[in-house]
């Protein structure tokens, strides 16, 4: 689905690691030889409160750095889904966690147990963001698997590399099971 400009919005609450997920996707795009801008929006709270990260990927130079009509939305909370569900590109997809209540929207919704997979299969709910990166990568191919793995290894704390790789692969698997 690599169009000229791809916009991704990752939304949920503060502390879910969405900004890091955005950084990883954008850095992977750059490793793939594309241009990318990652930006973010959050409130004054350290944890909780609405949080979102945005990524714009393009083969060209990126002028406007923010997301307007995303092709991909990740929503990890009900609040995030309800806020963003009606404003996507025509072929856009919304990826939601299984803890999120489906809502009416003209866009395709893909519901997957992202948080549960991180918590129960990997053993650390903290890596839900990396599971989500795996889901987005496998579902949209917006970045290459090689680049996303390199980007993760560059950005996660030392000693957690294997844990995060497992989380990434678990994300791929969630998508494989869809078909």
């Amino acid at each position, binding site marked *: 689905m690599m169009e000229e400009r791809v916009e991704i919005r990752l939304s949920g609450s503060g502390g879910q690691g969405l900004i890091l997920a955005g*950084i990883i996707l954008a*850095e992977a795009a*750059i*490793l793939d030889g594309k241009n990318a801008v990652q930006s973010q929006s959050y409130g004054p709270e350290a944890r909780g409160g609405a949080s979102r990260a945005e990524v714009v990927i393009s083969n060209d130079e990126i*002028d*406007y750095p*923010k997301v307007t009509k995303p092709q991909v939305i990740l929503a990890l909370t009900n609040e995030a889904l309800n806020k963003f569900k009606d404003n996507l590109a025509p072929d856009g997809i919304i990826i939601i966690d299984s803890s999120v209540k489906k809502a009416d929207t003209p866009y395709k919704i893909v519901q997957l147990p992202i948080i549960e997979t991180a918590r129960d299969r990997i053993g650390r709910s903290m890596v839900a963001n990396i599971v989500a990166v795996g889901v987005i990568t496998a579902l949209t191919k917006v970045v290459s698997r090689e680049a996303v793995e390199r980007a993760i290894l560059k950005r996660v704390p030392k000693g957690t590399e294997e844990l995060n790789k497992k989380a990434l692969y678990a994300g791929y698997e969630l998508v494989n099971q869809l078909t």
Partner: protein
Amino acid sequence: MHDRIKFLQGNEACVEGALTAGASFYAGYPITPSSEIAELASIRLPAVGGVFIQMEDEIASMAALVGASMAGAKAFTATSGPGFSLMQENIGLAIMTEAPCVIINVQRSGPSTGLATKPAQADVMQARWGTHGDHAIIVLSPASVQECYELMIQAFNFAEEFRTPVIFLSDEIVGHMREKVILRDDIPIVNRKFPKVDPPEYRPYQPGEDGVPPLAYFGSDYIFHASSSMHDETGYPNNVPDNAEKVIKRLYKKIYDHRDEIIITKEYETEDAEIILVSFGASARSAREAVYILRESGYKAGLLQLNTLWPFPDEKVRQLADRAKFMVVPEMNLGQIISEVKRVVEARIPVYGVNKVNGEIITPYEILGKIKEVF
């Protein structure tokens, strides 16, 4: 990725630029959305033998900058609106004592605490006139992570060349966005002029031909006095009217006589443009996108992006106004740069503002909406 190609935040690129420029001293008090600058400086400066101090507040931070600068260091700090307000008094001290230094203001929405995590571009006039008294100041504004890096080097170069504080006016969007950046190592680095005379003959405020006095450093053989009071070439207080007039005019002229060198602008699609957008910082990104959308629909639109806000690029704006039907000035405030554009254009063509103060970026479509309304 090549060693010097990085994926960084604007704030991080500011620190990289400062280090490339030779900065060795940072004093500051962390504040959103500038804190990443303090965080990274606290790691990077000690690693290269520099000094990082977390001060008790922004008043003291700015005072420490003046001291470090007088002791020979290339010094910088970073803050946002509330801290920038506190720094104003000692920015005046830096202007009066001619202490080279760089002050980064990553603008957020105000007044006062305001929307602490949201962007604005409303400190344009404060950067120009925040400290009291007639004075000149250099203010630079980046619109990308690459510009954060390159303009930061330029900011230090101007500070050193003209013995002046330089304000680096970023904003939350540019400061927090991450982009690819090439950490160029081919930009020339400027260092302050050191006196050539023997220590007893040194007059710390006797200008060279360029209006800038050579600067010795505290702790050297050159003993000198730097005063916030009106002083003469010896550095000691002097209240004679002729002297005061001479000093204030020199402090102004040492900047304004070098406008050609200091003023940095970028132009996109302006060659034949009838619609000229004038913008800076994050808004310039939206304006650039708007220009390309307009071009696709057959409109002759172009963008003048201001990297130097002060001294204001009068001549460049005037030239473009000569060929344009109208100008549009998108900025995240209720109209600050637009008043300068109008001053220069002198009502020869209409100038319209696109203004937004809700803590969100101006979108290209809001700019297009305004243009469709007036075209």
